């Protein structure tokens, strides 16, 4: 089980959290202008990186707030957690393995 550091509550066991998948996927500003291919990419296509990726987490059985995290998917190690809306920290880079 992972130890997840909520930016509001501190370190808590993973079972308190829900992982919301890849972060920083912005909803298209003008949905009506999108063609099927662009919609498909927004809805379904994911980076699925082996290495450092940014993802959304919800402290479901805690403060019930969403936050973002940088995590290495090869080792499961968390590199940083940060508040929603904040830019992705440079820590860990983001180079694929």
């Amino acid at each position: 089980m992972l130890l997840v550091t909520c930016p509001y509550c501190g370190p808590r066991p993973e079972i308190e959290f829900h992982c919301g998948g890849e972060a920083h996927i912005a909803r298209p500003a003008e949905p009506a202008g999108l063609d099927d291919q662009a919609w498909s990419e927004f809805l379904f296509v994911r980076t699925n990186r082996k290495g450092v990726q940014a993802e959304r987490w919800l402290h479901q059985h805690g403060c019930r707030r969403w936050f973002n995290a940088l995590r290495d998917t090869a080792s499961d190690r968390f590199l940083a957690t940060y508040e929603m809306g904040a830019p992705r920290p440079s820590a860990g880079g983001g180079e694929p393995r």
Partner: protein
Amino acid sequence: MRRFSFRTLISEAFKGHKGWERQWRAPEPKSSYEVVIVGGGGHGLATAYYLAKEFGIRDVAVLEKGWIGGGNTGRNTTIIRSNYLYDESAALYNHAVKLWEGLSQDLNYNVMFSQRGVMMLAHNLHDVRSFRQHVYANRLNGVDNEWLTPEQAKEFCPPLNISREARYPVMGAALQRRGGTARHDAVAWGYARAADAMGVDIIQNCEVTGIRRGADGAVEGVETSRGFIATRRVGVVAAGHTSVIMERAGVRMPLESFPLQALVSEPVKPVFPCVVMSNAVHAYISQSDKGELVIGAGTDQYVSYSQQGGLHIATHTLEAICEIFPQFSRMRMLRNWGGIVDVTPDRSPIIGRTPVPGLYVNCGWGTGGFKATPGSGHVFAHTLAKGEPHPINAPFILDRFRTGRLIDEAAAAAVAH
């Protein structure tokens, strides 16, 4: 290839079993091949076998970064069934079951396919209605499936606890009698041996590090840890690492990779006659011919390539197993492990062309690809040989995520696949 037969077995027994030879070669990669398969698991090896056998394409290399069958082929719970809800899925998985039924003879290798029956338990009214719908839909598609009362389920699987006081009461079960198990390693080895005998090069310890594309965008070859290999056709069958490989060709996929866990107990005498699955509590269990209880658990909630998974996932499954089969509560577990499964948004596989000319993909089997191994290899070989899909895998193209023609087995089959 020296064929296995009763005669060779007897003659080897008298010679102290010293005459058995290597079952497949360990060739150096050639500078070019007609077709290159990336990934030496069951699906990749089956693809190579059917390319050689059905389509006469023998200039084929299977590139495996580790050893063959060392990924999900050696990590699954070996369950085979085809009771999927939708017509497209039923056709695909039943195609595989039909091939399973003659596979040992076809390969001249005992894959220990055992049609001991797969029983799916219903624990609540929703399960009952959903499974009965499955039973009727399956029958219309020519897939055997039948509904059992709790007493009939108990008769088919005596260890089952059908007490009304149980934590997860059994309200009935759907039984596919043609379902069962096979020996997973033997499937990889059998396909490897038969493909090798027809001239396919199986190259282990050879990692694909890049996919080279020409000025027109078409595939020209693959960069590997053992040098460049030229080819015009590449079939990527890399399961959990599909996104990683495809990124090297500049293609982004509708996939996420999760660890799926399984575990085995200490071996005991035969106590469990069939396969039992419970979607509601996410547990499935059978007994291997070695005597171990083989137990499948769930996936972790986050993307990971770690091949481990959280212990709380396995704990949850074991707690449920002990409620449904109380006599197993004192069994000791020997090993647990994870395999990285590539999951699509609609929980159905992707088999077909990609936007890159010459690049084909067979992926997205998610938490249940082993059962489809022969069928998957067969239709993918057809796709690679002809350049267009077999009628069975035509609905499973990558483009369905653009057109919206999804095959939503996620909603149809709850969680377990």
